[in-house]
C-alpha cells in the first residue's frame, strides 16, 4: 500500500550538505532553505515568473516535487499533506493566473488553521505596479486570507523571510503564509548563510496558560451538574489528543467533537456523543443546550456548531481554551477564558481535576439519549443508500483509514457514519466548505503517509472540480482509493431546495457528467462501479486488493437527505429528525 515515489534522504544528512556558506541564486537559496526546514514534498506548477526556481529544481532530488495539473490541485494537496502530517505544506505557483489559482486553497487553509507556505513568483521588481504581463498583486489579494505575507524585496532577505514564514505558519494558531518572489530576486545571487534565529517582536504566541484560570476551571468542574466538553480542531493541531483522553477519563465528562475535531477522541468511548451542530447528533445538541458548564477545547464556536447564537447553551457557564485570544468571546460570551496551547493547557489542568458525583444523573441522561437517538436512515434492498456505503467503508477498514472528503451530503454522511479513532485521519474543508478539495487533498495525505490507506470520498459534483489530478495518481502510482458517491445531483443544494425552498430544484441536475469509470481509465487509473449492495461489496474489496490508485463509483439514490438537520435561524435543539425519528 505504499506510494512508489523514492524516499528522500533525511534532513540531518542534508543539513551538512547545504549548510555551507556559498554565493548562490535566490532560487537555490529557496530550495536549500526548504530542505533545511525539513520539507519532503512540494506541489507546484511552473510559469514565466518562477522559471529560475524551476531551473534550480532541475535534477534537484533532495525533496519531491509533484507537478499537479492545476494550481488548485497543488494547493489542496499541500493542505492535505499538512493536515495528515502536522508539518508545513508547501506549494509553488507562478505569478498572475498561477497565483490567483491558489486563492481558494489559501482561504481553505486559513479558515481551518492549516500551516502552509505558499511560494508565488512575481514579475521583476522594476515592473511591479505597471500592469506587466501576468502581474497580479497577490499579497494584496490574499491579505485577508493569510496569517502573514511577504513580498520579497531583495535576495539578501530571502533566507530570513523563508525561515520566518515556516515559523509563523506552524506556531501559535497555524495558518498559510505567502512568499511572493519577484523574478529578479530568484535570479540574483548572494552569500547564503542559513538563518539560525528568529526575531519577530510582534509575534509571541502564548503557549502556557495562566495557572489561576486553570484553578477556576477545576473548581467549575467540581460544582457542575451538567458539564459538557466541546473539542475542536485545536486538539488535533496541538497534538493534545492523549491529554484530552486523560482529561475525559479523569473527569468522566461527556464529550462532543466538532467536524474538524473528529478523530481527536476515540469514537468508541462511551462518553463520546458524536458531532454537534447543523448535522450533529441529537445527544450532542441536547447536551450543549441543557449543560450548566460548557468546556470548549480548541474549537471556535462556528455558526454551523452554534446555530442561532442568542439561544446557544443558554444555561452554561462557558470555559474557552484557545491558542488564539481573539477567538475567546468573539461569538460566545466566556466566563473562564484560558489562552494557551491545548496540549500544554491539558497537561497542566489534568492533575487538578477529578470525577464529580454531582454529574451522575447527567451521565445517565446522556447514555439514555445516545441509546434512544442514534443516526438512522431507511435502508433499501433495491438501491444503494449513501449512508450504507459509508458504513461499508467503515466496516472494511475498521476506522483505520485516512479519509478525505469533498463538500456536500457525502461529507456529512462520512462525518456521521465513519468512526474515527485517530487524530489526523480525517481531512475535510470545514470552515470554507471548498468543493474540489477532497480528491487533491488525498494525494497530499498519501504523500505524507505512504504507509496508510487513504480514501477520498467525493460527490459527483465536487469530483469534477479537480478530477484532472487523477493523472498524478496514475503517473506516480499514488494508491489513493477515490470514491465517488454519485447521486446525479448537487445533493446538498438539492436538500436545501427541498426543505427550505419548497422543492424548487434550481440548477442541481448534473446530467452530462462523465462516465466516471471511463474518466479514471482515460487517466490510466482503474475504475469500478457499483449500483447495488452485492456489487458494492465486491468492487470495494477489489479496490482494496488493488495496490495502485482506484476510482470506485457508487451509484446511489438521489432523494436521500442528511438528518438530523438544524435549519438556519433555529437553535441547535430544534432539529428536523427525518429518518432519525
Amino acid at each position, binding site marked *: 500500500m505504499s506510494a512508489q515515489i523514492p524516499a528522500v534522504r533525511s534532513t540531518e544528512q542534508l543539513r551538512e550538505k547545504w549548510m555551507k556558506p556559498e554565493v548562490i541564486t535566490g532560487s537555490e537559496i529557496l530550495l536549500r532553505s526548504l530542505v533545511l526546514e525539513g520539507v519532503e514534498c512540494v506541489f507546484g506548477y511552473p510559469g514565466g515568473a518562477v522559471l529560475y526556481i524551476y531551473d534550480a529544481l532541475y535534477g534537484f532530488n533532495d525533496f519531491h516535487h509533484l507537478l499537479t495539473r492545476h494550481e488548485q490541485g497543488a494547493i489542496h494537496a499541500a493542505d492535505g499533506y499538512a493536515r495528515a502530517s502536522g508539518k508545513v505544506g508547501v506549494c509553488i505557483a507562478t505569478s498572475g493566473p498561477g497565483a490567483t489559482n491558489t486563492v481558494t486553497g489559501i482561504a481553505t487553509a486559513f479558515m481551518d488553521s492549516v500551516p502552509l507556505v505558499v511560494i508565488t513568483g512575481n514579475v521583476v521588481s522594476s515592473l511591479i505596479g505597471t500592469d506587466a504581463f501576468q502581474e497580479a498583486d497577490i499579497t494584496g489579494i490574499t*491579505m*485577508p486570507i493569510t496569517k502573514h505575507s511577504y*513580498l520579497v524585496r531583495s535576495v539578501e532577505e530571502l533566507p530570513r523571510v523563508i525561515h520566518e514564514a515556516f515559523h509563523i505558519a506552524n506556531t501559535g494558531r497555524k495558518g498559510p503564509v505567502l512568499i511572493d518572489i519577484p523574478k529578479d530576486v530568484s535570479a540574483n545571487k548572494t552569500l547564503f548563510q542559513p538563518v539560525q534565529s528568529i526575531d519577530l517582536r510582534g509575534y509571541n504566541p502564548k503557549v502556557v496558560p495562566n495557572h489561576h484560570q486553570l484553578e477556576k476551571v477545576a473548581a467549575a468542574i467540581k460544582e457542575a451538574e451538567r458539564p459538557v466538553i466541546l473539542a475542536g480542531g485545536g486538539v488535533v493541531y496541538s497534538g493534545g489528543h492523549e491529554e484530552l483522553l486523560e482529561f475525559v477519563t479523569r473527569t468522566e465528562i461527556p464529550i462532543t467533537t466538532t467536524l474538524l475535531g473528529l478523530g481527536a477522541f476515540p469514537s468508541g468511548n462511551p462518553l463520546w456523543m458524536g458531532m454537534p451542530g447543523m448535522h450533529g447528533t441529537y445527544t450532542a445538541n441536547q447536551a450543549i443546550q441543557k449543560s450548566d458548564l460548557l468546556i470548549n477545547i480548541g474549537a471556535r464556536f462556528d455558526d454551523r456548531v452554534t446555530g442561532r447564537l442568542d439561544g446557544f447553551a443558554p444555561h452554561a457557564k462557558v470555559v474557552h481554551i484557545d491558542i488564539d485570544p*481573539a477567538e475567546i468571546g468573539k461569538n460566545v460570551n466566556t466566563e473562564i477564558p484560558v489562552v494557551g496551547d491545548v496540549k500544554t493547557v491539558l497537561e497542566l489542568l489534568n492533575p487538578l481535576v477529578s470525577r464529580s458525583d454531582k454529574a451522575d444523573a447527567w451521565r445517565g441522561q446522556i447514555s439514555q439519549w445516545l441509546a434512544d437517538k442514534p443516526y438512522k436512515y431507511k435502508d433499501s434492498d433495491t438501491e444503494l443508500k449513501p449512508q450504507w456505503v459509508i458504513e461499508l467503508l467503515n466496516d472494511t477498514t475498521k476506522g483505520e483509514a485516512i479519509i478525505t472528503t469533498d463538500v456536500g451530503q457525502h461529507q456529512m454522511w462520512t462525518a456521521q457514519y465513519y468512526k474515527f479513532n485517530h487524530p489526523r485521519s480525517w481531512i475535510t474543508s470545514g470552515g470554507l466548505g471548498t468543493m474540489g478539495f477532497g480528491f487533491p487533498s488525498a494525494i497530499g495525505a498519501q504523500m505524507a503517509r505512504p504507509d496508510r490507506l487513504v480514501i477520498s470520498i467525493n460527490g459527483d459534483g465536487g469530483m469534477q472540480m479537480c478530477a484532472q489530478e487523477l493523472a498524478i495518481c496514475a503517473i506516480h502510482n499514488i494508491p489513493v482509493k477515490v470514491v465517488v458517491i454519485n447521486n446525479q445531483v448537487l445533493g446538498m443544494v438539492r436538500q436545501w431546495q427541498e426543505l427550505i425552498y419548497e422543492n424548487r430544484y434550481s440548477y442541481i441536475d448534473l446530467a452530462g457528467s462523465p462516465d466516471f469509470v471511463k474518466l479514471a481509465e482515460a487517466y490510466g487509473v482503474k475504475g469500478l462501479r457499483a449500483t447495488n449492495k452485492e456489487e458494492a461489496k465486491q468492487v470495494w474489496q477489489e479496490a482494496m486488493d488493488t495496490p495502485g490508485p482506484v476510482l470506485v463509483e457508487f451509484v446511489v439514490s438521489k432523494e436521500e437527505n442528511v438528518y438530523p438537520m438544524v435549519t438556519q435561524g433555529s437553535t441547535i435543539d430544534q432539529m428536523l429528525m427525518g429518518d432519525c425519528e
Partner: protein
Amino acid sequence: MTTTMTSHTIAVLVNDQPGVLQRVSGLFGRRGFNIESITVGQSEEEGLSRMVIVTQGDDKTLEQIEKQLYKLIDVIKVVNLSSKPMVARELALIKVKSEPAERPEIMGVVETFRAAVVDIGTNSMIVQVVGDTEKIDAMIELLHPYGIRELSRTGVTAMIRGNA
C-alpha cells in the same frame, strides 16, 4: 460590559513595513469595524510607526479590535488611549471666502480660537486650527456662514498624559 456605542482612540505601534497600513485598514474593513479617523507617522523608535485610530463601538467590539490587531505579525503594541487621560489633537486647514470687508470679523473668530491665518488671497484666506475634535468642529461651524471653499483635516493623533 456595556453595549453602548462610544468613540475610542487606539494607538497601534507597527513595524514600518510596506503594506502595513493596508493590513490594518483591511482588517477594520473586513471585520466590519468602523474607522472614524486614522493617522500614521514615525514613532520614537526607528523602524516603527505609530497609528492612531479613532473608532466607534461597544466594549465587546473594542476588545475584538484589540485582539484582532494583535494577530497581525507587524503589530507590536496596541494601547487603548481613551481608557486613560490622554491628549488628543487634530489639525485642520480651512480655506474660507473672505472679501476684504469681512476679514476683520473672521480674524476675530480665529483669535478667540487661538487659531492662525496662514495665507491670505484676494478673496479668501487659509485658517489653521489645532485642537481636539470638538474645537475643530466648532471652528468649522463658525466659519461656515462666510463660505468654506476647501477643508482638510488630518485626523486625530494622541498620547497618554504624564509619565505613563
